[in-house]
């Protein structure tokens, strides 16, 4: 069986029970007072009962004497009947008096009165009998005796009455004291019970509504943005328990929701930042082209015209050269703002090498080894040409031996690996670090550069793939050549 717990009662039941208890307490208190006062009242009633009783006795006694006198005087049967009646009544009354020898003045007086009355009644009986027997002398004598006894008894009754009155007065004063005490004690009882009841009521009500108060405080905290606060767990089944649990669930959910919102906001922020950076770098690259103060469209249109002219003049080599030049610049202009396929990039490199070889009379020995399956992979534009340009300008230019550049495109577990390897001057570790960290801009020194530096390539790669270290440079030192490796991750 489930244990009945106080906290599982509904608020209404709780309030009803509490008020009911207080009412019950007050009712019990009233009942108690009523009983106490009632018993005191009874005692009060009893106080003068003995006096009243004695008065009755005295009246009957007087009637006996009167009846006897009446009978002796008139000898009417009515008075005789009255006499017998009252005599019997008087005897009955006498039964109530003490007849034992008890050392208490009241009891002793009662005894004396009873005994004397018995003697008296014997005497009156004799008187009446003598009267009926017409024994004049005897009844007169007996009447005198009776009358004398009558006065003794009357005196004794008076005295008893007095004594009883004295005793009753003292017990009356005791009763008065008792009543006074009852009055005071009842007031104190009442005050204590009311005070305790009120305090209990206040405490119980407070206990009932305490969760509400703390919930208000907690809600305030939650309102200030703190979602880690919680109401203390409760298993009470009343309305407040329900509300508390609902509140806690709400705060928890709010927390989760807020965390999610925050996360997505941060992501958005990051994305915006990246796009902004990308734009910056492209702008920078474009600026470089603009700085070259060449209008590429005009340039490659002119070059195309040059190429057609060369064809018409059957200068085939010149035609191809000019055409390649035109292609190269067109690519630069076209792809300046978007990404390209790896194939297009490789074509741009081929064009560039062709142009250089025409310029430098075939001094550059370029070879490539490309996995053709990756030619359609999209990569940021203008990343291979600047690397090859660097290999030409800083690697194999001004060397005594035959300069060679080898480009390899292979698949590897990370994605695609592009390696540009030369047998030129090589680089020291310091130079490599400078290039990788973007401290040293190689591309600024030459007038014939395409204008895009290594650090620009590195930055764009990182921005595009959101990964660092996609470009690595290896060199075994001066004269040992340089290898630049670009990793293109496949997942984007």
């Amino acid at each position, binding site marked *: 069986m489930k244990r009945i717990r106080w906290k599982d009662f509904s608020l209404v039941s709780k309030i009803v029970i509490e008020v009911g208890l207080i009412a019950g307490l007050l009712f019990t208190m009233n009942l108690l007072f009523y009983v106490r006062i009632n018993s005191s009242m009874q005692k009060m009633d009893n106080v003068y009962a003995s006096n009243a009783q004695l008065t009755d006795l005295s009246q009957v006694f007087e009637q006996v004497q009167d009846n006897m006198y009446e009978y002796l005087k008139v000898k009417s049967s009515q008075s005789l009947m009255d006499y017998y009646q009252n005599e019997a009544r008087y005897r009955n009354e006498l039964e109530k008096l003490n007849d034992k020898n*008890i*050392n208490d003045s009241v009891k002793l007086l009662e005894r004396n009165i009873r005994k004397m009355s018995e003697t008296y009644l014997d005497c009156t009986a004799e008187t009446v009998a003598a009267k009926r027997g017409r024994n004049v002398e005897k009844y007169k004598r007996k009447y005198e005796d009776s009358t004398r006894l009558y006065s*003794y008894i009357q005196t004794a009754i008076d005295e008893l009455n007095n004594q009883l009155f004295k005793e009753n007065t003292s017990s009356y004063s005791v009763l008065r004291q008792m009543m006074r005490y009852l009055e005071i004690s009842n007031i104190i009882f009442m005050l204590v019970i009311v005070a305790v009841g009120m305090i209990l009521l206040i405490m119980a009500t407070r206990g009932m509504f305490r969760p509400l108060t703390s919930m208000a405080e907690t809600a305030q905290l939650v309102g200030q943005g*703190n979602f880690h*606060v919680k109401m203390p767990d409760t298993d009470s089944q009343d309305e407040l328990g329900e509300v508390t649990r609902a509140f806690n669930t709400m705060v928890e959910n709010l927390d989760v929701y807020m965390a999610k919102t925050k996360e997505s906001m941060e992501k958005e922020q990051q994305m915006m930042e990246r796009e902004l950076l990308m734009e910056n770098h492209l702008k920078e690259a474009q600026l470089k082209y603009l700085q070259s103060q060449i209008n590429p469209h005009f340039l490659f249109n002119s070059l195309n015209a040059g190429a057609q002219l060369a064809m018409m003049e059957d200068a085939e080599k010149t035609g191809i050269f000019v055409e390649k030049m035109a292609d190269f610049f067109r690519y630069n202009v076209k792809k300046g703002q978007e990404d390209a396929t790896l194939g297009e990039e490789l074509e741009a490199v081929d064009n560039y090498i062709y142009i250089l070889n025409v310029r430098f009379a075939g001094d550059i020995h370029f070879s490539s080894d490309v996995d053709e399956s990756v030619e359609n992979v999209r990569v940021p534009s203008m990343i291979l040409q600047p690397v090859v340009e660097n290999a030409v300008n800083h690697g194999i230019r001004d060397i005594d031996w035959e300069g060679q550049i080898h480009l390899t495109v292979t698949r590897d577990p990370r994605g695609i690996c592009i390696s540009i390897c030369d047998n030129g001057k090589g680089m020291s570790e310091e130079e490599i670090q400078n290039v990788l960290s973007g401290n040293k801009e190689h591309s600024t020194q030459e007038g014939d550069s395409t204008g895009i530096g290594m650090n620009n390539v590195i930055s764009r790669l990182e921005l595009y793939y959101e990964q660092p270290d996609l470009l690595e440079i290896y060199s075994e030192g001066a004269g040992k050549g340089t290898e630049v490796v670009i990793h293109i991750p496949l997942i984007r």
Partner: protein
Amino acid sequence: MSSNPANYYLIIYIKKKANDADLLYNEIYQTKGMTIMKKKGMTLGLLLSGAGLLILLHMTGESYLNGLAGANRQMQADTKEYMYKYDMIVDNPESSFWQAVYASAEKWARENDSLLELKGTDEESQYTKLDYMNVSIASRADGIILQYSGEDGLEDKIDEAVADGIPVVTLMNDAVHSKRQTFVGVSDYQLGSAYGEKVADYVTRDTKNILILLKRNIDDMNQSQIYTQISNAAQAKTGAGQPVTVSVKNLLSSGTFGTEEAVTDIFQQRNKVPDILVCMDADTTECARQAVLDFNLAGKVTIIGYYTSPDILTAVEKGVLALTCDVDTEQMGKYSIEALTEFQKDGRSNSYYNVDINFLDKDAVRALRREGLSE
């Protein structure tokens, strides 16, 4: 990280605030938890102390009520039922002499399962001893102890009581012509000779008048034994050459305040003031003592008193009274009850119990006082 630093700082601020609030909340909650526990303890304590207070109130109240009621019931609690009920009828029950006799008699009565009621003519009642005898007979007492002083009709009443089966013990004086059961006291002869002897000690050449104050009928031959004995002793002391007038004054019928008036009368007639005044009861002795002081006759009148109330003893000590006769009240009370008890038991008893008497003078009283002090 953020392009807008102000925004960033705002986030940090909110987080910090929330964290602070969190700590604050935990703190609040902890303190609240403690307060709740404290409050529970307080409630319990309050309830317990309330209940304790009520119980304490109730208990003290009940004991107080019981005390009140108990004081009332006390008198009844001491009561006891006795087998026999005796009446003691004397002339002046309030006097210390009779109170002493009653105290002794009452004590012995209680020991013999009897109840003793003291009755007598006092300021409250108009009853004579005859009336009291009537009442006692009518109320069927088991025995009567009566101070007999020779009143008219009293002997008949004694006979009436005896006829009703109520034994009567006479005190002080014997009702010789009645059917009284027992007499407890000093016989007149004995008393007379004892007083006579003492009177003779104080009789000098100047002694002319000796007055004896009695409370009984002098016509009675038996009573005159006192007079005769004192008179004889005085005459024997002075011899035939010096006549001494010995007179007796009966104060019996003097009524309320009569004793005092009669004694004052004696001292008012300066030339008739007796040389020696013999008082034969306690009341008279006290009146005589007061009169001697009032009339400034201390030392001029030799007073021989009766009984040893504190006032009388002081008077003897100061020389106002020459002597006082110490009657053994203890014996008197005891013998009275003894006689009645014996009668109830056997239907008969001794007809005469003798009570010791003893005269105390100044030295004897002082010795008595020292004894009393050393005790």
